[in-house]
């Protein structure tokens, strides 16, 4: 296809992505290195007879407006926002590094800094949910594949529900059940024998609940992909393995899993990307006090009375860099495939 033809075909979608993805990224980067102007303060001395003179500090509205009009971006602060306490917290990090002597102590202290807390949760979520999803999906696929033909379709239908449901709504549905007044929550209270046992009160339990939600939401995807892969499994390979005396477990390990390996890579890639975005369950579970992800951290900065655009932008930039790092092995591989395919 000639360059010019390509350009015309690609123009609408390219323009949409340029205007609403690429340019906002540029704007986010700019906002992260400029801070809003502080209000210009002036001291006014007011003297009244008998009382004496007092000086009052007030905001000089005109000067502030003039300053903002002159430099609408704000004042240039370089990487200061990245290094402040709300983000990378360089000073606190250094102090901690010097003061604590064990790794455990260092990391638990680091967890008190908001940005590191959000990063720790996001990475934990990615690292726990991704492998569990793959394992659970594989087991479900093997089990459903052994079912009777008529039951298979029904199982796929119900299995799709947790994945297809809106993440916020799915997490609300689960949250109402595990809430201390809900059916699972009150069963847990009865099991624990402690009437004050509550999900909302414990950071650890809240993390577990969020991770369970993550697996529940993502397992159907892995299941469906692996199930489709099982349909293409050549039966002669399995038969050969049986003739050689392989046990059922060995058949799964040496025939089925290697056959599904490309699919495992695919599911892992998609899951890495999606789990890194984790956001809605934190809102749905009302878990901001116990767990923050990078996305919910940005959301909190953007919400509320004061929109802290600079702070949100700095976190956004670091999140995008994190995505790029996460994807770099894939990018290298795709490049090789592309070179090979041509």
């Amino acid at each position, binding site marked *: 296809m000639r360059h010019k*033809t390509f350009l015309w075909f690609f123009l609408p979608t390219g323009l949409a992505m340029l205007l609403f993805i690429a340019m906002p*990224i540029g704007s986010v980067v700019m906002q992260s290195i400029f801070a809003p102007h502080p209000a210009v303060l002036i001291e006014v001395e007011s003297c009244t007879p008998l009382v004496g003179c007092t000086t009052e500090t007030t905001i000089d509205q005109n000067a502030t407006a003039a300053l903002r009009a002159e430099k609408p971006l704000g004042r240039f602060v370089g990487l200061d926002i990245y290094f402040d306490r709300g983000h990378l917290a360089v000073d606190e990090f250094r102090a901690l590094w010097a003061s604590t002597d064990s790794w455990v102590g260092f990391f638990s202290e680091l967890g008190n800094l908001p940005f590191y807390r959000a990063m720790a949760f996001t990475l934990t979520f990615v690292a726990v949910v991704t492998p569990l999803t793959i394992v659970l999906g594989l087991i479900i696929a093997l*089990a459903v594949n052994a079912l009777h033909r008529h039951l298979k379709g029904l199982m796929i239908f119900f299995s799709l*529900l947790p994945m297809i449901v809106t993440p916020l709504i799915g997490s609300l549905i689960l949250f109402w059940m595990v809430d201390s007044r809900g059916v699972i929550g009150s069963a847990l209270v009865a099991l624990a024998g402690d009437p004050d046992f509550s999900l909302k009160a414990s950071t650890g339990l809240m993390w577990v609940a969020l991770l369970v939600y993550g697996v529940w939401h993502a397992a159907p995807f892995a299941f469906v992909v692996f199930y489709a892969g099982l349909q293409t499994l050549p039966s002669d390979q399995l038969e050969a393995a049986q003739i050689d005396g392989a046990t059922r477990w060995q058949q799964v390990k040496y025939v089925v899993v290697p056959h599904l390996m490309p699919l495992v890579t695919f599911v892992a890639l998609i899951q890495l*990307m999606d789990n890194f975005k984790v956001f809605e369950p934190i809102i749905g579970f009302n878990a901001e006090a116990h767990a923050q992800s990078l996305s919910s951290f940005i959301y909190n900065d953007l919400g509320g009375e004061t929109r802290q655009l600079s702070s949100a932008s700095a976190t956004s930039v670091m999140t995008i860099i994190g995505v790029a790092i996460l994807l770099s092995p894939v990018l290298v591989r795709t490049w090789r495939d592309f070179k090979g395919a041509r």
Partner: protein
Amino acid sequence: MASRAQRMPTSLRVASSLFVLLWFILAAFPFIWTVWGSFKVELDFFSIADWTNAITGERTKAVYGSPFTATGYHGAWIQEEFWRNVLNTAIVCFFVVTISLTIGTLGGYALSRSTYNYTFWLLITALIFRAMPPITLVAGYLLPFFEWNLWGILPTTIIVLVAINQPFTLWMLHSFFKNIPSELDESAKVDGCNQFQAFRRVIIPVMWPGVITTGLFSFLLAYNDFVVGATLLSESNRTMVPAVNAFMGTTQTEGNVMFAVASVVSATVPLFILVMFFQRQIVGGLTAGAVKG
């Protein structure tokens, strides 16, 4: 699985069936429970005293004389005007799907037929865009949208969702078009068509299965969106999901939780119907990318 050697031993068969049953309960029970509970009063839905109340609806019977009540739905749809949010979601979904399929088809086709290096870089850029959490872009939208008075209205949200949708649409349609042999449009070009005519006369008639599948996923993205709707829409223009979240913010007064439960169920029903009719296409779409590797 015809041969006798491949038949499972009974113990394994039982274990595997039990596991399927367990997964079935995990996947389906929360939905069934919530749908059932949405017709109860709050004290039954969250029954601390006796969990069987949630099934029998004792309190609901005491208040309304019948174990089922639609007050949650009435409150959500009429009192809180949830129908406006439903209408907004319908508008947003319709336009997002139409626009993103139109421009995505053209772009995906071009990417699948060009062999230059830049197609690779465009696809990789799209992959990175696909992996970025959408919330990272919101800080970049707010100032210009406020400045130009675009904030809070549906068209802005639609165009933003279309753009966020494009990377995925491009990847999906790119791989679908790769499966359509390029000899088809090459021969049309030999017969005197230019590229666009070849696309229109030869490719469009055969592309519908791929486009429908991609459209389903575009729909899901627009329907399930929370971030964009919650940050870029004013209160009166909210779509369903941010509206549900707003109900959650006002849970203090009694009954409001049931409004949220009713609206949650209302918002799940279309998805349920979607899976019922398009199960084959959804499964096909999920695996299409995987088979390509």
